[in-house]
């Protein structure tokens, strides 16, 4: 079995008296797509926030390629390869679609501290941004301000920005939520395409069971902040506790 790319060790955070993530220990291996399921409020988004650093951990560790990153600022974790797309769309609203993606590529190329060249003169960055926009089929909207995009297209752009970042760890938080039935497959195909690169690991919070069945190599279940189940999809889905507690409910959502 390949080595773990990302590990969490007893990772926990408490908000006041409420323990939102409760000592979760879990390994994520390269070449694996892990679906994270659990009811609303289970702590899935907070678990992501702890891994990417938006929320500081109360206890425990996050390790990337065996090295601890628990105390590093968000941007530094991103630079080391922890990439994140957000459940609530989180873009640069006043800037164009193209500029949103271009900024990500520029970050990846470590060009931000260049004060005296013209941003648009870096053809390799602009071309890479165009290429990503073509892949997510947003290139015809590239000049539009993000604030004028439909919800579905904003969700697509959210995913496009994570793909543009080219991280080692992809974290998608309900990427297709609120998308129409014909938009969602585009995004899911993109995520499926990322599995071809076996040096990365993908974490996907998703409610739709059919999606999980086709994409996931493994499922973990969070319940009240604790890791309630972990294993191959068929096994986890069949387990009694999961069947009763979550799958029944989740299936109704579909």
């Amino acid at each position, binding site marked *: 079995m390949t080595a773990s790319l990302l590990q969490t060790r007893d990772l926990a955070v408490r908000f006041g008296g409420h323990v939102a993530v409760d000592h979760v220990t879990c390994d994520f291996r390269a070449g694996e797509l892990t679906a994270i399921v659990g009811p609303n409020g289970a702590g899935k988004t907070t678990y992501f926030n702890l891994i990417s650093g938006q929320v500081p951990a109360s206890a425990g560790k996050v390790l990337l390629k065996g090295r601890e990153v628990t105390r590093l600022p968000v*941007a530094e974790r991103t630079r080391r390869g922890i990439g994140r797309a957000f459940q609530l769309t989180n873009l*640069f609203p006043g*800037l164009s679609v193209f500029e949103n993606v*271009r*900024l990500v590529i520029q*970050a990846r190329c470590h060009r931000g501290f260049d004060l005296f060249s*013209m*941003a648009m003169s870096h053809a390799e960055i602009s071309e890479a941004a165009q290429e990503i926009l073509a892949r997510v089929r947003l290139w015809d909207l590239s000049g539009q301000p993000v604030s004028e995009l439909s919800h579905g297209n904003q969700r697509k752009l959210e995913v496009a920005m994570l793909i543009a970042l080219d991280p080692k760890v992809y974290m998608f938080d309900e990427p297709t939520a609120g998308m129409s039935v014909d938009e969602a497959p585009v995004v899911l195909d993109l995520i499926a395409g990322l599995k071809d690169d076996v040096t990365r690991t993908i974490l996907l919070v998703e409610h739709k069971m059919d999606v999980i069945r086709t994409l996931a190599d493994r499922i973990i279940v969070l319940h009240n902040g604790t890791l309630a189940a972990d294993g191959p999809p068929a096994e986890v889905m069949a387990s009694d506790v999961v069947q009763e507690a979550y799958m029944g409910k989740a299936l109704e959502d579909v």
Partner: protein
Amino acid sequence: MLTRLLSGDGPRSLPLALILLAIFLCLALAPFLFPGTRSVDTAARICVFILLVASYDLTLGYAGIVSFAHTMFFGMGAYGVALASTHLGRGFDALVLGTLAGALAAAVFALLIGLFSLRVRAIFFAMITLAVASAVAVLVSQLSGLTGGEDGLNYQIPRALTAAQKYLDEPVLGVRINGKLLNYYLVFAASTALFLVLLRIVNSPFGRVLQAIRENDFRAEAIGYRVVYYRTIATCVSAVAAALAGSLYAIWLRYVGPDTTLSFEIMVDILLMVVIGGMGTMYGAVIGATLFILAQNYLQGLMGAAAAGLEGVPLLPGLLDPDRWLLWLGVLFVLSVYFFPTGIAGRLRGE
């Protein structure tokens, strides 16, 4: 060529381009078009304030940072030149040294304020800049032995930059070719060049990150930009540009005092100029500074003339009394913000 000079960020609107061209030509030819001490003085002030307001736009309009310390940085450049000229004696070396020292002091202060307070909430940064700027202003008026206190400092600049130095015996187009004229073109050329540098910076990869931070600092951090460093560098660049504007102003005026460089009133003027002109456009600084300074200088005169002309009409002469010019400026400000929320430049670009 022009595109590169403007960093690919042209006016993008014909009326805006025409207005900018007109302002540029008027300033470039001011000594010949508007001879007379007062009008050339106004033109020089416009040049300096365009640079000052543009440097403020870098932080406020592009990075979304609210600072009240901009006049402090402006003052550092001005006092740098004044102190060097006072203590080292009249000379170009004093001007250069004073300018560099002022810019360095501004950069160090900006760095300290930035690293200390930019990681926390924006309002906290604004308060810190206000506190530091007030403290510095008080200090400058208290340390009168060094700074001249409220009276400020008068000093001499190299003769080559004063009216005493004649370069041609005969006037050209009715204008004496002397050191004062050279001084004007020094101010004009330096302001123009530095404005173009600022325009380049806001269109650089760095400038784009500032806009990203303004739009959504949380996401900027999440894609790998250390927001606090970018904000700090932006504050430093802006402070240095303001200090250089201050040095030019000091070279032009041959006098510095709290009222000409450090006062809170100037800070408010800068805010008005950037908002009237249009934030986050750079060109707004050109329009805002020009309009504001012209209004400041000539509105009073115009109103005085109008009040005299309307003598006998009830109420109106009182309203148009020159002492009420600030009131009218306030009315103009409210109207312009109401009708052009994106400023004049934004409006002309159809935003």
